[in-house]
Protein backbone atom coordinates (compact mmCIF):
# COMPACT_ATOMS: atom_id res chain seq x y z
CA UNK A 1 0.00 0.00 0.00
CA UNK A 2 1.38 3.38 -1.00
CA UNK A 3 1.92 6.02 1.65
CA UNK A 4 0.48 9.16 0.14
CA UNK A 5 2.53 11.72 2.06
CA UNK A 6 5.78 9.86 1.63
CA UNK A 7 5.04 9.65 -2.08
CA UNK A 8 4.18 13.35 -2.12
CA UNK A 9 7.47 14.22 -0.43
CA UNK A 10 9.49 12.22 -2.95
CA UNK A 11 7.43 13.58 -5.84
CA UNK A 12 7.96 17.18 -4.70
CA UNK A 13 11.70 16.69 -4.39
CA UNK A 14 11.95 16.21 -8.14
CA UNK A 15 12.22 19.99 -8.33
CA UNK A 16 15.95 20.71 -8.12
CA UNK A 17 15.44 23.67 -5.78
CA UNK A 18 13.34 21.56 -3.42
CA UNK A 19 15.95 18.83 -3.43
CA UNK A 20 18.68 21.35 -2.70
CA UNK A 21 16.74 22.77 0.24
CA UNK A 22 16.10 19.26 1.50
CA UNK A 23 19.78 18.40 1.41
CA UNK A 24 20.52 21.61 3.30
CA UNK A 25 17.84 21.28 5.97
CA UNK A 26 15.95 18.00 5.87
CA UNK A 27 13.92 18.58 9.04
CA UNK A 28 12.62 21.93 7.88
CA UNK A 29 11.28 20.32 4.72
CA UNK A 30 9.90 17.29 6.55
CA UNK A 31 8.02 19.61 8.91
CA UNK A 32 5.97 20.73 5.92
CA UNK A 33 4.54 17.22 5.72
CA UNK A 34 2.78 17.05 9.11
CA UNK A 35 0.65 14.10 8.03
CA UNK A 36 3.72 11.96 7.39
CA UNK A 37 3.40 9.06 9.82
CA UNK A 38 6.06 9.16 12.58
CA UNK A 39 7.39 5.72 11.68
CA UNK A 40 7.64 6.72 8.04
CA UNK A 41 9.41 9.97 8.87
CA UNK A 42 11.77 8.00 11.06
CA UNK A 43 12.52 5.62 8.19
CA UNK A 44 13.24 8.59 5.94
CA UNK A 45 15.63 10.05 8.49
CA UNK A 46 17.34 6.67 8.96
CA UNK A 47 17.59 6.33 5.16
CA UNK A 48 16.06 2.91 5.63
CA UNK A 49 15.48 1.62 2.13
CA UNK A 50 13.87 -1.60 3.33
CA UNK A 51 11.33 0.22 5.48
CA UNK A 52 10.38 2.56 2.65
CA UNK A 53 10.10 -0.10 -0.07
CA UNK A 54 6.49 -0.80 -0.93
CA UNK A 55 5.26 2.43 0.65
CA UNK A 56 6.24 4.38 -2.43
CA UNK A 57 6.51 3.69 -6.13
CA UNK A 58 9.89 2.09 -6.96
CA UNK A 59 10.75 4.80 -9.48
CA UNK A 60 10.20 7.51 -6.87
CA UNK A 61 12.12 5.51 -4.28
CA UNK A 62 15.12 5.24 -6.55
CA UNK A 63 14.82 8.88 -7.54
CA UNK A 64 14.73 10.02 -3.90
CA UNK A 65 18.00 8.43 -2.96
CA UNK A 66 19.56 9.78 -6.14
CA UNK A 67 18.27 13.27 -5.24
CA UNK A 68 19.75 13.22 -1.76
CA UNK A 69 23.12 12.30 -3.15
CA UNK A 70 23.37 8.56 -2.54
CA UNK A 71 25.41 6.69 -5.09
CA UNK A 72 23.83 4.09 -7.33
CA UNK A 73 25.97 1.42 -5.66
CA UNK A 74 24.72 2.50 -2.22
CA UNK A 75 21.12 2.18 -3.37
CA UNK A 76 21.62 -1.08 -5.26
CA UNK A 77 23.23 -2.73 -2.25
CA UNK A 78 20.26 -1.85 -0.06
CA UNK A 79 17.43 -2.46 -2.49
CA UNK A 80 18.82 -5.87 -3.39
CA UNK A 81 18.90 -6.82 0.27
CA UNK A 82 15.19 -6.11 0.52
CA UNK A 83 14.69 -8.91 -2.00
CA UNK A 84 16.70 -11.43 -0.07
CA UNK A 85 14.98 -10.35 3.14
CA UNK A 86 11.61 -10.97 1.53
CA UNK A 87 12.76 -14.37 0.29
CA UNK A 88 14.09 -15.22 3.74
CA UNK A 89 10.72 -14.30 5.14
CA UNK A 90 8.97 -16.60 2.70
CA UNK A 91 11.40 -19.42 3.44
CA UNK A 92 10.76 -19.08 7.15
CA UNK A 93 7.06 -19.08 6.49
Amino acid at each position, binding site marked *: MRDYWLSKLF*FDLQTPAAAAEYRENRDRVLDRYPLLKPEVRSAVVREDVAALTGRVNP*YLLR*FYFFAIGKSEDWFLERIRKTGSAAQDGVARG
Partner: protein
Amino acid sequence: MASLVGVFASSHAPLMARAWESVDALRRDQVTATFTELAARLRAARPDVLVVVSPDHWVNFFLDNLPSVCIGVGETHQGPPEPWLRHLPYTSIAGHPEFALHLARSALEEGFEPSLSHHLELDHGFVIPLWKMGIDPLPPLVPIVVNTIEPPLPSLGRCLAWGDLVRTAIERHPGDLRVAILATGGVSHSIGEPDMGRIDEAFDRECFEHLRASDRERLLAFLEQRLEAAGNGAAEMRNWLVAHGAAQGKEFELIGYHPCREWYVGCGFAAWNLDGR
Protein backbone atom coordinates in the same frame (compact mmCIF):
# COMPACT_ATOMS: atom_id res chain seq x y z
CA MET B 1 -8.29 9.94 -45.44
CA ALA B 2 -5.20 10.05 -43.30
CA SER B 3 -2.74 7.21 -43.61
CA LEU B 4 -0.61 5.26 -41.19
CA VAL B 5 2.86 5.51 -42.67
CA GLY B 6 5.10 4.01 -40.04
CA VAL B 7 5.03 2.15 -36.74
CA PHE B 8 8.13 1.93 -34.58
CA ALA B 9 9.26 1.03 -31.08
CA SER B 10 12.30 2.00 -29.08
CA SER B 11 13.63 1.64 -25.58
CA HIS B 12 14.18 4.88 -23.71
CA ALA B 13 16.77 3.97 -21.07
CA PRO B 14 17.64 7.18 -19.18
CA LEU B 15 21.22 6.05 -18.73
CA MET B 16 21.67 6.34 -22.49
CA ALA B 17 21.67 10.04 -21.69
CA ARG B 18 23.11 10.09 -18.18
CA ALA B 19 25.76 7.40 -18.49
CA TRP B 20 26.22 6.71 -22.19
CA GLU B 21 29.88 5.84 -21.75
CA SER B 22 29.25 3.25 -19.06
CA VAL B 23 28.69 0.81 -21.91
CA ASP B 24 31.71 -0.28 -23.95
CA ALA B 25 32.45 1.35 -27.29
CA LEU B 26 31.48 -1.67 -29.37
CA ARG B 27 27.97 -1.87 -27.94
CA ARG B 28 27.60 1.92 -28.01
CA ASP B 29 28.36 1.77 -31.73
CA GLN B 30 25.79 -0.98 -32.16
CA VAL B 31 23.14 1.03 -30.35
CA THR B 32 24.02 4.10 -32.41
CA ALA B 33 23.72 2.08 -35.62
CA THR B 34 20.31 0.87 -34.51
CA PHE B 35 19.13 4.40 -33.80
CA THR B 36 20.48 5.49 -37.19
CA GLU B 37 18.49 2.76 -38.91
CA LEU B 38 15.35 3.62 -36.95
CA ALA B 39 15.80 7.29 -37.83
CA ALA B 40 16.19 6.49 -41.53
CA ARG B 41 12.94 4.59 -41.49
CA LEU B 42 11.10 7.29 -39.58
CA ARG B 43 12.36 9.97 -41.97
CA ALA B 44 11.43 7.82 -44.97
CA ALA B 45 7.88 7.63 -43.63
CA ARG B 46 7.68 11.47 -43.84
CA PRO B 47 5.09 11.80 -41.08
CA ASP B 48 3.04 14.96 -40.73
CA VAL B 49 2.16 13.81 -37.22
CA LEU B 50 4.02 11.49 -34.89
CA VAL B 51 2.00 9.76 -32.19
CA VAL B 52 4.37 8.86 -29.35
CA VAL B 53 3.20 6.31 -26.79
CA SER B 54 5.11 6.41 -23.54
CA PRO B 55 4.62 6.40 -19.78
CA ASP B 56 4.75 9.48 -17.61
CA HIS B 57 7.54 9.04 -15.06
CA TRP B 58 5.93 11.11 -12.29
CA VAL B 59 6.11 14.38 -14.18
CA ASN B 60 2.55 15.31 -15.15
CA PHE B 61 0.68 12.90 -12.94
CA PHE B 62 0.79 11.82 -9.32
CA LEU B 63 -1.33 9.77 -6.95
CA ASP B 64 -3.80 12.68 -6.85
CA ASN B 65 -4.76 12.04 -10.43
CA LEU B 66 -3.37 9.09 -12.31
CA PRO B 67 -5.02 8.43 -15.67
CA SER B 68 -4.65 5.06 -17.35
CA VAL B 69 -4.40 6.76 -20.71
CA CYS B 70 -4.02 10.45 -21.48
CA ILE B 71 -3.86 12.11 -24.89
CA GLY B 72 -1.92 15.35 -25.23
CA VAL B 73 -4.14 17.66 -27.26
CA GLY B 74 -2.20 20.87 -26.75
CA GLU B 75 -0.80 23.16 -29.41
CA THR B 76 2.56 22.74 -27.75
CA HIS B 77 4.09 20.42 -25.23
CA GLN B 78 6.88 21.30 -22.88
CA GLY B 79 10.23 19.61 -23.28
CA PRO B 80 11.72 17.26 -20.75
CA PRO B 81 11.95 18.58 -17.18
CA GLU B 82 14.80 16.31 -16.15
CA PRO B 83 17.84 18.50 -15.43
CA TRP B 84 20.10 15.99 -17.16
CA LEU B 85 18.17 16.46 -20.41
CA ARG B 86 18.37 20.24 -20.52
CA HIS B 87 20.85 20.10 -23.38
CA LEU B 88 18.30 18.45 -25.69
CA PRO B 89 16.95 20.69 -28.47
CA TYR B 90 13.36 20.15 -27.38
CA THR B 91 12.35 23.04 -25.13
CA SER B 92 8.94 23.46 -26.69
CA ILE B 93 7.47 20.74 -28.86
CA ALA B 94 4.69 21.38 -31.35
CA GLY B 95 1.54 19.38 -30.91
CA HIS B 96 -1.18 18.60 -33.42
CA PRO B 97 -4.39 19.50 -31.60
CA GLU B 98 -6.60 18.84 -34.58
CA PHE B 99 -5.53 15.22 -34.95
CA ALA B 100 -5.24 14.75 -31.19
CA LEU B 101 -8.83 15.88 -30.64
CA HIS B 102 -9.98 13.73 -33.54
CA LEU B 103 -8.27 10.79 -31.83
CA ALA B 104 -9.93 11.68 -28.54
CA ARG B 105 -13.37 11.95 -30.16
CA SER B 106 -12.83 8.67 -31.97
CA ALA B 107 -11.89 7.06 -28.67
CA LEU B 108 -15.04 8.29 -26.96
CA GLU B 109 -17.19 7.12 -29.86
CA GLU B 110 -15.64 3.66 -29.57
CA GLY B 111 -16.12 3.29 -25.83
CA PHE B 112 -12.68 4.40 -24.67
CA GLU B 113 -12.42 7.16 -22.09
CA PRO B 114 -8.99 8.79 -22.21
CA SER B 115 -7.98 11.75 -20.12
CA LEU B 116 -6.98 14.80 -22.08
CA SER B 117 -4.24 17.29 -21.38
CA HIS B 118 -3.76 20.60 -23.10
CA HIS B 119 -0.27 20.95 -21.71
CA LEU B 120 2.02 18.02 -21.08
CA GLU B 121 5.66 17.95 -20.16
CA LEU B 122 7.27 15.21 -22.20
CA ASP B 123 9.83 13.42 -20.10
CA HIS B 124 12.72 11.19 -21.11
CA GLY B 125 10.38 8.42 -22.21
CA PHE B 126 9.13 10.61 -25.03
CA VAL B 127 12.29 12.39 -26.07
CA ILE B 128 15.30 10.12 -25.59
CA PRO B 129 14.55 7.92 -28.62
CA LEU B 130 13.89 10.97 -30.81
CA TRP B 131 17.06 12.65 -29.60
CA LYS B 132 19.18 9.54 -30.12
CA MET B 133 17.69 9.23 -33.60
CA GLY B 134 18.72 12.82 -34.28
CA ILE B 135 15.21 13.91 -35.20
CA ASP B 136 15.41 17.71 -35.13
CA PRO B 137 13.17 19.46 -35.86
CA LEU B 138 10.48 17.14 -34.67
CA PRO B 139 7.27 16.62 -36.56
CA PRO B 140 4.20 17.71 -34.58
CA LEU B 141 3.76 15.23 -31.75
CA VAL B 142 0.61 13.74 -30.32
CA PRO B 143 1.59 12.12 -27.03
CA ILE B 144 -0.34 9.23 -25.60
CA VAL B 145 0.58 8.60 -21.99
CA VAL B 146 -0.10 5.04 -20.88
CA ASN B 147 0.20 4.33 -17.18
CA THR B 148 2.84 1.64 -17.01
CA ILE B 149 4.32 3.01 -13.81
CA GLU B 150 1.91 2.74 -10.90
CA PRO B 151 -0.47 -0.22 -10.55
CA PRO B 152 -3.18 -0.97 -11.30
CA LEU B 153 -2.14 -0.73 -14.93
CA PRO B 154 -4.37 -0.92 -17.99
CA SER B 155 -4.83 -4.49 -19.14
CA LEU B 156 -2.66 -5.88 -21.92
CA GLY B 157 -5.70 -6.56 -24.06
CA ARG B 158 -6.87 -3.01 -23.62
CA CYS B 159 -3.53 -1.67 -24.80
CA LEU B 160 -3.76 -3.79 -27.92
CA ALA B 161 -7.29 -2.48 -28.41
CA TRP B 162 -5.94 1.06 -28.05
CA GLY B 163 -3.74 0.30 -31.02
CA ASP B 164 -6.77 -0.78 -33.03
CA LEU B 165 -8.46 2.43 -31.99
CA VAL B 166 -5.56 4.62 -33.08
CA ARG B 167 -5.61 2.92 -36.46
CA THR B 168 -9.37 3.40 -36.77
CA ALA B 169 -9.01 7.07 -35.89
CA ILE B 170 -6.36 7.51 -38.58
CA GLU B 171 -8.57 5.81 -41.16
CA ARG B 172 -11.52 8.00 -40.21
CA HIS B 173 -9.59 11.24 -40.34
CA PRO B 174 -10.76 13.20 -43.37
CA GLY B 175 -7.53 15.07 -43.96
CA ASP B 176 -4.55 14.08 -46.03
CA LEU B 177 -2.31 13.40 -43.04
CA ARG B 178 0.61 11.03 -42.84
CA VAL B 179 0.69 9.61 -39.32
CA ALA B 180 3.46 7.56 -37.75
CA ILE B 181 3.54 5.92 -34.33
CA LEU B 182 6.48 5.49 -31.99
CA ALA B 183 6.06 3.36 -28.88
CA THR B 184 8.76 3.70 -26.27
CA GLY B 185 10.01 1.72 -23.30
CA GLY B 186 10.81 -1.88 -22.47
CA VAL B 187 12.00 -4.45 -22.89
CA SER B 188 12.84 -6.25 -19.61
CA HIS B 189 14.18 -4.09 -16.81
CA SER B 190 13.62 -3.44 -13.18
CA ILE B 191 13.93 -0.05 -11.49
CA GLY B 192 13.88 0.56 -7.74
CA GLU B 193 13.05 -3.05 -7.02
CA PRO B 194 15.14 -5.81 -5.44
CA ASP B 195 16.14 -7.20 -8.83
CA MET B 196 17.16 -3.80 -10.19
CA GLY B 197 19.69 -4.33 -12.96
CA ARG B 198 18.39 -7.74 -13.96
CA ILE B 199 17.66 -8.21 -17.65
CA ASP B 200 15.65 -11.22 -18.79
CA GLU B 201 17.06 -11.86 -22.24
CA ALA B 202 15.06 -15.03 -22.68
CA PHE B 203 11.86 -13.13 -22.04
CA ASP B 204 12.87 -10.35 -24.39
CA ARG B 205 13.67 -12.70 -27.24
CA GLU B 206 10.48 -14.72 -26.75
CA CYS B 207 8.56 -11.48 -26.71
CA PHE B 208 10.02 -10.52 -30.08
CA GLU B 209 9.12 -13.95 -31.45
CA HIS B 210 5.52 -13.56 -30.35
CA LEU B 211 5.34 -10.10 -31.89
CA ARG B 212 6.76 -11.52 -35.11
CA ALA B 213 4.34 -14.46 -35.10
CA SER B 214 1.49 -12.00 -34.71
CA ASP B 215 -0.95 -14.35 -33.02
CA ARG B 216 -2.73 -11.93 -30.73
CA GLU B 217 -4.11 -14.51 -28.33
CA ARG B 218 -0.76 -16.21 -27.89
CA LEU B 219 1.03 -12.90 -27.54
CA LEU B 220 -1.35 -11.80 -24.82
CA ALA B 221 -1.20 -15.16 -23.08
CA PHE B 222 2.59 -15.06 -23.11
CA LEU B 223 2.68 -11.56 -21.69
CA GLU B 224 0.02 -12.31 -19.07
CA GLN B 225 2.18 -15.16 -17.88
CA ARG B 226 5.65 -13.66 -18.13
CA LEU B 227 5.57 -9.87 -18.22
CA GLU B 228 5.41 -9.13 -14.51
CA ALA B 229 8.42 -11.31 -13.75
CA ALA B 230 10.48 -9.43 -16.34
CA GLY B 231 10.66 -6.38 -14.06
CA ASN B 232 8.48 -3.38 -13.41
CA GLY B 233 9.95 -1.59 -16.42
CA ALA B 234 8.81 -4.39 -18.69
CA ALA B 235 5.29 -3.09 -18.10
CA GLU B 236 6.20 -0.57 -20.80
CA MET B 237 5.65 -3.34 -23.34
CA ARG B 238 2.06 -2.16 -23.10
CA ASN B 239 3.19 0.72 -25.31
CA TRP B 240 4.53 -1.75 -27.84
CA LEU B 241 1.12 -3.43 -27.77
CA VAL B 242 -0.48 -0.15 -28.78
CA ALA B 243 1.92 -0.01 -31.72
CA HIS B 244 1.34 -3.67 -32.55
CA GLY B 245 -2.42 -3.16 -32.53
CA ALA B 246 -2.16 -0.10 -34.74
CA ALA B 247 -0.01 -2.05 -37.19
CA GLN B 248 -2.47 -4.93 -37.08
CA GLY B 249 0.47 -7.09 -36.17
CA LYS B 250 1.94 -6.75 -39.65
CA GLU B 251 5.53 -7.70 -40.36
CA PHE B 252 7.17 -7.03 -37.01
CA GLU B 253 10.88 -6.55 -37.57
CA LEU B 254 13.42 -6.41 -34.78
CA ILE B 255 15.86 -3.70 -35.78
CA GLY B 256 18.13 -4.15 -32.80
CA TYR B 257 18.36 -5.76 -29.40
CA HIS B 258 21.04 -4.64 -27.00
CA PRO B 259 20.82 -5.96 -23.45
CA CYS B 260 22.90 -3.42 -21.53
CA ARG B 261 23.22 -4.22 -17.85
CA GLU B 262 25.07 -0.95 -17.33
CA TRP B 263 21.90 0.87 -18.40
CA TYR B 264 19.71 -1.69 -16.59
CA VAL B 265 17.64 -2.28 -19.71
CA GLY B 266 17.21 -4.91 -22.36
CA CYS B 267 17.09 -2.30 -25.10
CA GLY B 268 14.83 -3.25 -27.99
CA PHE B 269 14.10 -1.43 -31.25
CA ALA B 270 11.57 -2.44 -33.86
CA ALA B 271 9.47 -1.50 -36.83
CA TRP B 272 6.28 -2.94 -38.24
CA ASN B 273 6.58 -3.01 -42.02
CA LEU B 274 3.15 -1.89 -43.07
CA ASP B 275 3.68 -2.44 -46.76
CA GLY B 276 4.74 -6.02 -46.19
CA ARG B 277 8.35 -5.54 -47.24
